[in-house]
């Protein structure tokens, strides 16, 4: 295992210490339980937004804490969802009296731990609404299973809902908006390489030099299928078409498009993927109104990418353009 770390068991705490040292203007970091809050939290009268999940997906979620996005993020151990006390304390820390939205990615662990945290917060009289993001088209949805994973749409939902909360919208309105974004967002990812969880010390799966994984999640899990390596254009089609056909996105739709790197893939490759995605959208009569190209929701040093398309109306576009001031996403401020 080749990593810039000290002891595997110290990775998350030392990362948090680094974040605290690097961004005192943006955030405060609380230890035991671990959570990152806006430097100016709580903001009276504003709906608080809390998200969280396992570590290893940086910049998500800690890098999205700040004005116009999240009020707090709760980082668990690497790829392990955080514990209820973290979300409970973070919820109290950001509660400005207007209630708190929990944005939860659909993984059993995340759902159960956020559920317990919400129960604790509600017991203390804090109004909490949870919205579960499940946008991964690689997983067939079904009432009888754990359902779809929450992936790339989470980033867009945190930006858009953060802007709405900043505008002073109510908890119900922000929660409804979050559900709308989840309903209109679809994602799919692929891996060229596995990644190595620090305390494991070896790659989660072996992927031969000529093979790739299609339909991966964000925890180094193997994907739905393994197949021979293909060109960037072919891979982009294999991700984009299932996304487009799932919603489905139709001619005339306007979208926000994200080409996301899994952590170990350089920008030069992500732009090659974006080039083809733009071509495919054009071919389907879909207009890309806004785009993100870079590492936003990652799996440690995994090489690969994911594509997210979010159908966008004027309200969503205005909220997207609103100022955001975080370590991972910043404009207009």
């Amino acid at each position, binding site marked *: 295992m080749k990593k810039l770390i000290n002891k595997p068991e110290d990775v998350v705490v030392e990362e948090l210490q680094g974040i605290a040292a690097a961004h005192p203007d943006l955030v405060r970091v609380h230890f035991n339980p671990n959570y990152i809050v806006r430097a100016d939290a709580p903001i009276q009268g504003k709906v608080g937004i809390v998200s969280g999940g396992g570590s290893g997906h940086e910049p998500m979620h800690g890098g999205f804490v700040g004005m116009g996005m999240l009020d707090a993020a709760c980082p668990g151990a690497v790829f392990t969802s955080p514990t209820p006390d973290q979300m409970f304390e973070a919820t109290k820390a950001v509660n400005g009296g207007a209630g708190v939205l929990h944005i939860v990615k659909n993984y059993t662990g995340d759902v159960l*731990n956020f559920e317990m945290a919400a129960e604790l917060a509600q017991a203390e009289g804090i109004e909490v609404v949870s919205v579960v993001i499940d946008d991964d088209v690689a997983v067939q949805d079904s009432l009888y299973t*754990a359902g779809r*994973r929450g992936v790339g749409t989470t980033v867009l939902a945190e930006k858009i809902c953060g802007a709405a909360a900043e505008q002073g919208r109510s908890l119900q309105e922000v929660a409804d908006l979050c559900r709308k974004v989840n309903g209109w967002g679809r994602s799919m990812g692929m891996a060229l390489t596995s990644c190595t969880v620090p305390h494991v010390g070896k790659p989660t799966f072996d992927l031969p030099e000529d093979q790739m994984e299609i339909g991966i999640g964000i925890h180094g*899990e*193997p994907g739905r299928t393994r197949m021979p390596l293909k060109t960037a254009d072919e891979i982009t089609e294999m991700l984009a078409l299932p996304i487009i056909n799932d919603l489905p996105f139709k001619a005339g739709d306007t979208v926000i498009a994200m080409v996301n790197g899994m952590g170990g893939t350089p920008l030069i490759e992500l732009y090659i993927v974006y080039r083809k995605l733009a071509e495919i959208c054009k071919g389907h009569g879909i207009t890309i109104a806004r785009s993100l190209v870079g590492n936003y929701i990652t799996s440690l040093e995994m090489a690969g990418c994911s594509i997210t398309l979010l159908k966008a109306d004027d309200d969503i576009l205005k909220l997207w353009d609103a100022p955001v001031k975080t370590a991972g996403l910043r404009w207009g401020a």
Partner: protein
Amino acid sequence: MRSGVITRDDIISWLQCYREVVGEQKDYLTQLDAAIGDADHGANMDRGFAAVLAKMPTVAEKDIGAILKMTGMTLVATVGGAGGPLYGTFFMRAGATTDGKMELSPLEFLAALEAGLAGVQQRGKATIGEKTMVDALTPACQALRRALEAGQPFAVALQQAAQAAEEGMKATIPMLATKGRASYLGERSIGHQDPGATSSYLLFRCAADCFANKNKE
């Protein structure tokens, strides 16, 4: 001690035994999780039970219910993932049924385990056959009840429960996962043993080993 009676010291040594086993099996559990999950189940359980043992002094002198509740709350607060809330709920519910008790009869012990399993199913919404810890816990509790009602000595009954848990664990191998992380793999989840079912089997294995002397008297 009197035959077939479980004291608070027995419960503590059961948890100590499990903590050691989880420590030894950490990499094995993580390997299983790497195949169909996210390679953290061993580390999660190890972290959780290390914390439980560290907290034991806080329940010195306290009753069995307090010990089990402390165990559950500590797991919830330190494990995370799916395992944390599920095992946490398991022990918290077991603790609720043994409130104030300084010792348990085998049937009371069984009742505590059954309450724990009910809690796991309520939280996780999993039924048998979905390739989860439920597939080990359920047959284990059933076997324990059958054996005790048939008048088997407690230690023998626990051996049968552990054996049933092991069979339940092995039975997860051919299953298609429909709950938990493994469900995202669809068909590819088939052919792998579920890590949570494995850690649940080990919990019963420890009980059987710890309480082995319970009928020799």
